[in-house]
C-alpha cells in the first residue's frame, strides 16, 4: 500500500518538475538583478567608500527614511537610487513589451517601437523642449504623443479589412514616418545653441536627470502593464499561433490584440517618457530570454523582465562611469546589443525558425 502511495507521489513530483522547468533560470535572473541593483548603488562619479554607503543605508532603513540629509544620503537616495530604479523599470518594461509584440505579430524581429510609439514620443518631447523649459511638460508631451501614435496606428489598421496584425505593422510604419518627419521639422526650427542639443540628447536616451517624482508617476503604469502581460502570458502563446488557430481555440483575437497593444504601449511610452529613446533592449533581451527558457510566454515574460532590468542596469552603470562625460544610453545599448546579437546569430542559437 505504502509502495503505491510512494509511486503516486513520485509521479506527482515528476509532473511538478516538468511544469516548473525553466524556473531555476528565472530565479537566477532575479538574483542577478538584485545583485546588480546593490552593486550599482556603490558605483558612481562621486566616490563614496563602501562602508559609508552601507552604514547610511542601514541607518536610513532603521530610521525609516527620516534621516538627516547628508551629502552621502543625498547622493545615494536622491541621485543614485532613483536612477537605478528607473534603469530597472525602463529595461524591464521595454523588454516585456518587445517580447509581447513579437508574439502578437508572430515576428521575432519586432521591437516595442513597432507601432510608431518612439517616433511619436520623440516628436512630443522635441515639441515640449521647443515650447517649454519645464521637464514635466516635456515628459507629458512625450507620453501623450507616444500614445497618440499607437492610437493612430491602431485606428488606421481598423479601417482596412485585411489580416489585422499585418496591417497594424504597416500602419505603425506609416505613423512612425509622419512623426519622424515632424520631429525633423521641429529640430530644424529649434535654436541650435540651446534647444537643439537638448532634443538630440533626449532622442539618444539618458537616465541622468531622473528624479523621484518621475518614478512616482511613471512606475504605476509600467508595473500595472507588466503585471497584466505576465498574467496573460500563457495566452500570448495561443495568439502567436496566428489568428485562425487562436480563434479555433476560443480566443477572442480582437480583444486580446487590443489588450496586448494597450499594455505594451502604456509600458513602453511611460518608460521612454522618462528615459528618452533607448533602442535594442526590447529586441535583444527577449531573444536572449527565449534562448534560456524556451519560447513559452509563461516563462519568457518574467525572464525578459529580470534580464531587461539587469541589462539596462549594467549599461547605465557603464554610461555613468566609463568616461568623464555621460555616454547616451541609446548609443551604448546599440554598441553592446548589436555585436552581441550578431554573435548569437552566428551561433544559431536564436529561438525561432
Amino acid at each position, binding site marked *: 500500500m505504502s509502495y503505491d502511495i510512494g509511486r503516486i507521489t513520485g509521479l506527482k513530483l515528476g509532473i511538478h518538475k516538468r511544469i516548473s522547468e525553466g524556473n531555476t533560470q528565472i530565479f537566477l535572473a532575479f538574483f542577478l538583478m538584485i545583485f546588480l541593483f546593490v552593486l550599482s548603488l556603490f558605483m558612481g562619479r562621486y566616490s563614496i567608500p563602501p562602508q559609508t554607503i552601507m552604514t547610511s543605508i542601514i541607518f536610513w532603513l532603521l530610521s525609516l527614511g527620516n534621516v538627516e540629509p547628508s551629502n552621502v544620503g543625498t547622493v545615494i537616495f536622491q541621485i543614485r537610487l532613483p536612477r537605478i530604479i528607473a534603469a530597472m523599470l525602463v529595461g524591464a518594461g521595454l523588454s516585456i513589451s518587445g517580447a509581447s509584440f513579437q508574439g502578437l505579430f*508572430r515576428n521575432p524581429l519586432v521591437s516595442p517601437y513597432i507601432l510608431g510609439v518612439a517616433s511619436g514620443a520623440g516628436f512630443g518631447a522635441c515639441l515640449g523642449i521647443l515650447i517649454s523649459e519645464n521637464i514635466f511638460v516635456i515628459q507629458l508631451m512625450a507620453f501623450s504623443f507616444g500614445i497618440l501614435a499607437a492610437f493612430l496606428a491602431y485606428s488606421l489598421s481598423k479601417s482596412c479589412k485585411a489580416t489585422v496584425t499585418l496591417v497594424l505593422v504597416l500602419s505603425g510604419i506609416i505613423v512612425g514616418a509622419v512623426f519622424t518627419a515632424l520631429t525633423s521639422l521641429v529640430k530644424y526650427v529649434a535654436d541650435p545653441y540651446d534647444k537643439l542639443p537638448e532634443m538630440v540628447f533626449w532622442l539618444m536616451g539618458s537616465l541622468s536627470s531622473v528624479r523621484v517624482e518621475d518614478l512616482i508617476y511613471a512606475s504605476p503604469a509600467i508595473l500595472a502593464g507588466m503585471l497584466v502581460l505576465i498574467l496573460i*502570458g*500563457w495566452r500570448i502563446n495561443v495568439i502567436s*499561433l496566428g489568428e485562425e488557430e487562436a*480563434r*479555433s481555440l*476560443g480566443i477572442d483575437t480582437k480583444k486580446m490584440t487590443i489588450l496586448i497593444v494597450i499594455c505594451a504601449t502604456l509600458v513602453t511610452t511611460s518608460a521612454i517618457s522618462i528615459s528618452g529613446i533607448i533602442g535594442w533592449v526590447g529586441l535583444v533581451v527577449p531573444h536572449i530570454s527565449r534562448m534560456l527558457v*524556451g519560447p513559452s510566454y509563461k516563462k519568457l515574460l518574467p525572464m525578459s523582465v529580470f534580464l531587461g532590468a539587469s541589462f539596462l542596469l549594467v549599461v547605465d552603470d557603464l554610461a555613468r562611469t566609463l568616461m568623464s562625460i555621460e555616454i547616451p544610453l541609446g548609443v551604448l545599448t546599440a554598441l553592446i546589443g548589436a555585436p552581441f546579437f550578431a554573435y548569437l546569430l552566428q551561433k544559431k542559437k536564436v529561438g*525561432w*525558425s
Partner: protein
Amino acid sequence: MILRVDNASYSYGGKENVFEDISFFLKKGETLCILGPNGIGKSTLLKCLGNVLKLSEGSVFIEGKDISSMSRTEIAQKIGYVPQSDQSVFPFSILDFVMLGRAPHLPFFSSPGEKDLTIAENAINKVGISHLRDRPVTEVSGGERQLALIARALAQEPEILLLDEPTSHLDFGNQVRVLNLIERLASQGTSVIMSTHFPDHGFIGSKKVAIMLENDFIDQGTAEEVITKENMALAYGVDVTIDHVSSIQRNVCLPL
C-alpha cells in the same frame, strides 16, 4: 443531434459565395466525410463550422444552441478544429504546443496545471508521437506536425472534431493510424467531420459522405449510396471502379 447546419452560405468580403445553402446534420458519434475537388470550399466550410470564419447566411446549432449566441470559449469547448497545416513561428515543444488546446477550459488569467498536463500527454500518446514530446514543433516533419495538431485538438476534449484533410502530409502507416484513431473516437462518442481527397476513406468505418461541388453538397448519405461511379465522374472527372473486397469486408474505390 449534436450538430445541425441550416442553409449555410459564405463569401469572402461580400464577393461571390464560396458555398450556398448547405444544410446537414450530424448525430453523436457519427463521422461525416466531405469529398470534392480542390478549391471548392471544403476548408472554408470547416472554418465556418469551427467559428474561425463567420457564415454570411444561415446558422450552425450545437446541441440545439445557435453558435452565434455562444461565446468563443463556449464554442471551443465543444468544437475542435484541425487545420491542414500549422505556421508556428516559435519553437514550442510538442508538449507545450499540445497543451495550448487547453485554452478554452482555463480561466482567462491562469495557465495549465497538472490535470491539463495529463490530458495533453494522453492526447500525445493517442496520436503516437510521445517520443517527440520535447522536440520543437518547428523542427519536426510536416506529418509529425499534423499529428501534433490533431493531438492539440484532442487535448481540447471537444464533442465535435473538424479535420481538414487530416491525412494530407502523412505517410501510409500514419494515414491508417489516423483513420483508425478517428474511428475509435467516433465509437467513443465524438462526432467527426473530415474533408479528404480519397473517396476510399469514406468506406473505412461506417461514415456518412457528402460531395461538395459548385458551392453546394450535390449528394449526401451513407458511403455506399454516395460514392458511386457517376458521382466520382461528376466530382473529379475520372472513371473509377467500386468493388467489394471480401478479405477486408468493405467496398473500395479505385481509379480505372
